[in-house]
């Protein structure tokens, strides 16, 4: 059985809940020797310091040893080696491969050729399931459930793969999505079709103010990047319209939490960091527990084994 993780879109509701329960165990006790004697390879064909550090910390805190590269310039890929050859070579050394690649579909292909499990740490604009897993974990942690939530997605909904993956993974949980984006960065038709096919309710909004935010359980902010605009006048016109300011939270529900995949540039005012609705730094911390769960699951370690683990370091 191929235990690779390429996308969360294929996971059932039960599987997602199972991984959340496993992540909860790791949040309780992140330091263990559960993976002692194992080798985890982190192959980053495209630099992503924050994702790499999170995966490597997850492996290290479970007692695994980590090999790999953070910079593709040092690999044989630059000498013309194919992805398959690199994967086959590393499979001889490591028990599992965490891979980030700039090409879309690279993780799927690697999972088909590799004799060891692959975890997709992002493949181009396609999928980034560990980000989605930590988002789901954070939503569950802050709301106590994943069911029947109003989730507001703000900013770049066109190129932002985190919002696309989140939307697809939430299909089991009867959400209502709200899309708030400039026209140039609106949610693509493909994902609206996906919503209609899976019975996911969605509304599109132009205004972004306190009255709108009043309905949110989760306010998921993303970065609006200047380079995404063909018309810079348009960018100048809309860039401030999707910034979150402290006074816009005046009518927010008490359970509402603000998430952001980070890095943030200026889309969330710094004054909000100390507001109880702000949750993006805890969200990033949850990446550790989510990734510990994903690595263990890919290695065939069960929730039962994690619960009965005798290797916890106090």
């Amino acid at each position: 059985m191929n235990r690779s993780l390429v996308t969360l879109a294929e996971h059932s509701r039960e599987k997602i809940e199972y991984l959340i329960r496993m992540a909860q165990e790791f949040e309780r006790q992140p330091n263990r020797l559960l993976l002692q004697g194992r080798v985890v390879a982190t192959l980053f064909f495209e630099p992503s310091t924050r994702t790499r550090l999170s995966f490597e910390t997850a492996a290290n805190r479970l007692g695994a040893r980590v090999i790999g590269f953070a910079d593709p310039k040092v690999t044989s890929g630059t000498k013309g080696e194919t992805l398959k050859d690199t994967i086959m070579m590393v499979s001889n050394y490591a028990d599992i491969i965490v891979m980030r690649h700039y090409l879309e579909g690279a993780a799927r292909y690697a999972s088909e050729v590799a004799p060891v499990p692959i975890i997709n740490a992002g493949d181009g604009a396609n999928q980034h399931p560990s980000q989605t897993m930590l988002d789901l974990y954070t939503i569950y942690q802050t709301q106590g459930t994943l069911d029947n939530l109003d989730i507001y997605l703000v900013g770049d909904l066109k190129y932002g793969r985190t919002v696309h993956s989140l939307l697809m993974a939430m299909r089991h949980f009867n959400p209502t999505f709200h899309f708030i984006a400039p026209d140039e960065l609106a949610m693509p038709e493909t994902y609206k079709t996906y919503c209609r096919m899976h019975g996911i309710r969605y509304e599109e909004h132009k205004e972004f103010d306190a009255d709108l935010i009043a309905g949110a359980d989760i306010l998921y902010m993303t970065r609006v990047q200047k380079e995404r605009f063909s018309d810079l006048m348009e960018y100048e016109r809309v860039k401030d319209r999707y910034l979150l300011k402290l006074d816009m939270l005046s009518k927010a529900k008490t359970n509402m939490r603000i998430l952001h995949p980070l890095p943030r540039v200026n889309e969330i005012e710094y004054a909000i960091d100390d507001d109880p609705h702000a949750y993006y730094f805890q969200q990033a911390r949850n990446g550790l527990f989510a990734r510990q769960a994903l690595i263990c699951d890919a290695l065939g370690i069960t929730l039962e084994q994690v619960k009965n683990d005798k290797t916890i370091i106090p």
Partner: protein
Amino acid sequence: MKREQLIVSALDHGTVIDHIPCERLFEVINLLHLDQMTSKVTIGFNLKSSKMGTKSIIKIADKFFTDEELNQLSVVAPNVSLSIIRDYEVVEKKQVCLPDELYGIIRCNNPKCITNNEPMRTLFHITDKEAGIVRCHYCNHEQDIKKVTLT
């Protein structure tokens, strides 16, 4: 018609692929690997057709294709008609139809897809047969089958 009948010999056993659009003929030849055939192959190009204006036709002796092979044809020439010949008689007529999956037939039109950057076989899932929409198994990009190129 009489003159054409003289040019194209009758087939005792084999497959006739008729009503191939002339501009697609050479793609059909490549797709079915007819250049590697050892049996007799007769190809008619720029023939008159009351239905299509001009058409092409291929007669392949002693060869019966699987449905899977024939369905790959639907990507380049969805409206061809097929006749299976045994003992000079047409024993079966078939229409091609788009299969659920396309292996190694078409190229992904996403330049950042792994399949365009690695020596590997492509795979597409048909998401909408009527509209001819296919999805790349690797990068998930949906594309119009009329706009794809062959591998």
